[in-house]
């Protein structure tokens, strides 16, 4: 066996012994991802139901009551308050009594017959989740109510009205079919990306700490005086963490699939390789930080920054297509960005290598570059 491999084996054995001996560290490494997973799955819900809503019905006819009923039936709104005018709605929203208001002007029924009815929807803009849920729900309800009215009209006018005329009386309807996740279950959307955020956070943080910790303890000096080469040292730090992170990933995905029932559509084999490349590149990034940091605190801060960028720019929550060039570019620097895209492709869409090879290649190149950079930047001396 070449000397280099023998040294690497000795270093890896040391790292594994130390990792396994540190029970608290292990518990943290396995426990934190699970905590994150359960928090995101149970506590974070982006669609808001039962928004407390003030109703101002100035029309007071059958159709206005039907419309209010349709809003309530959608489950998105609760009619908690009956008020007289818009000013009162503003006050109620200001006081926090309600988060939305529906104002139906007089002559609603007559206006609907003419096809020009308007309803004013007021939403509490200080709560973005209510706004987006309320806005889309209201639009959906209005649209479906309108089409219901149109059908009713056609029926009432009878068969004498030509089929053509009936069709033209219908407002334009859109039919939406959500692929892969027809019931729009949040955790289905979230898990493939969330796994990326959790694992990138863990990998970058642990790797960032591992070299600087030896520097802080001073144990690095006794290792530097051995013939160990920087690349061997960097790899020896990376390989045991890689195994541990893969295990964590297995647990996270396993819980997602078996506990939360997220369907796994693609190939496990392909997903394993994607994950391996992703974790390796994240660890490499962490090791690069570890070389540059002087204290564990600095390394920790860099890891935190990476997590923040990952959360906001990695495409897990906010769509990258909507980002301006610079944040998108920063996102491109994170392993997570490639992983999240490919992970969704394999996990949720169940398609094969043909669609993810570019992301996997990017991660492979990323890994090689950061590991070599980390080895090159590794300080062989103490100053």
């Amino acid at each position: 066996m070449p000397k280099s491999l023998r040294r690497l084996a000795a270093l890896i054995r040391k790292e594994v012994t130390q990792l396994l001996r540190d029970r608290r560290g292990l518990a943290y490494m396995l426990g934190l991802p699970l905590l994150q997973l359960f928090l995101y799955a149970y506590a974070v819900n982006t669609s808001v139901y039962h928004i407390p809503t003030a109703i101002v019905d100035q029309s007071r006819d059958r159709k206005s009551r039907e419309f209010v009923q349709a809003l309530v039936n959608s489950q998105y709104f609760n009619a908690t308050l009956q008020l007289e005018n818009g000013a009162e709605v503003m006050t109620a929203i200001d006081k926090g009594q309600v988060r939305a208001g529906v104002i139906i002007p007089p002559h609603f029924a007559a206006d609907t017959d003419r096809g020009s009815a308007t309803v004013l929807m007021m939403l509490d803009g200080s709560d973005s989740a209510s706004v987006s849920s309320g806005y889309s729900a209201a639009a959906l309800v209005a649209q479906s109510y309108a089409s219901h009215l149109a059908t009713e009209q056609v029926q009432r006018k009878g068969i004498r009205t030509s089929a053509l005329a009936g069709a033209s009386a219908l407002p334009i309807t859109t039919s939406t079919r959500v692929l892969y996740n027809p019931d729009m279950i949040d955790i289905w959307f979230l898990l493939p990306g969330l796994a990326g955020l959790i694992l990138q956070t863990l990998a970058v943080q642990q790797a960032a700490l591992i070299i600087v910790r030896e520097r802080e303890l001073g144990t690095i000096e006794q290792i530097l005086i051995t013939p160990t080469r920087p690349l061997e040292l960097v790899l020896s730090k990376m390989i045991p963490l890689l195994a541990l992170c893969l295990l964590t990933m297995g647990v996270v995905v396993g819980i997602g699939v078996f506990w939360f029932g997220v369907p796994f559509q693609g190939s496990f084999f392909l997903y394993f390789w994607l994950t391996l490349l992703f974790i390796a590149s994240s660890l490499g990034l962490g090791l690069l930080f570890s070389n540059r940091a002087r204290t564990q605190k600095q390394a920790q801060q860099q890891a935190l920054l990476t997590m923040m960028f990952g959360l906001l720019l990695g495409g897990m929550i906010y769509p990258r297509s909507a980002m301006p060039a610079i944040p998108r570019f920063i996102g491109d620097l994170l392993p997570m960005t490639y992983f999240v895209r490919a992970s969704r492709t394999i996990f949720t869409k169940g398609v094969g290598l043909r669609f993810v090879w570019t992301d996997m290649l990017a991660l492979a190149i990323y890994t090689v570059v950061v590991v070599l950079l980390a080895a090159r930047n590794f300080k062989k001396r103490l100053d």
Partner: protein
Amino acid sequence: MNELAISAQGLTKQFKTRGGMVTAVENLSLRVTPGETYGLIGPDGAGKSTATRVILGLLTRTAGESSILGFDSMADSYEIRERVGYIAQQNVLPADLTVMENMRFFAGVQCVSAEAQKKRIPELLAFAGLSNFTNRLAGRLSGGMKKKLALACSLIHEPQVVMLDEPTLGVDPVSRREFWSLLGDLRAEKGLTIFVCTPYMDEAERCTQIGLLYGGKLIAAGTPTQIKGLLPGHLLEFTPAQFAAAQQRITGMEGVLELQTYGEKLHVFVDDVGARKAQIEMALAAEGIAHDDLREIEVRMEEAFISLVQQQTEKVGV
């Protein structure tokens, strides 16, 4: 060049700090021949650790040359690292590995073959008196045992040179003695070249060659006897009743070369014991200062060191 175990020529190391450049080691030159026990002696902050690290290639040098076994400290770092054992000043063995795991780890990274390990590890553990502690975590060993483990680990690849940075720092006197007797065995049995940094003057006396480092500069070098021989005159010791008054009276007296305080005792260097002893006694009697007998004592490394440092500071002062 090759016949030297360790050599340094005009070695200088400067550190950048916020306040500007600080010179930790200045123009250091030393030569250590194989089989020697070389002691780099000096107070804390003299630059001993820095000098050792620069020679080992653990720090870059600002100027000068240095080499170990003919290998340049900077260019041939890995050749040096395969042939040299080193114990850093701080306790730097992984504390969360056991004694045995530490031995195996250092054997592994030095590429010691499995057969050699099987033979050498028990030997070294027995030598260091750690055979009964193989499963104890290094972090739970006493200070002296830690140093012995570090020594055993640094010898696993049978180095030709070992460099020890204050190996007995924070170690009790009994363990210190044991540690030095281990070093004596190594020199006697294996002909090992030992380079040791220490602030302890009694340890300096155990070295075959010493260099006195002060303020980053080598102020004297030679065998312990040579160093002590650098001092002028003879040494008288006595305990005066009024210390300050006695000190004041004797300073500047004819024939008094130097005055050192040593606890409640005064150490007076004089050019001639017979003549000066009587003069000092008369002077003290005239001032009414009581004292015990003035006796001539042998110069120890400690007095020699203090004297050399005083000369150095006077030189700088002028």
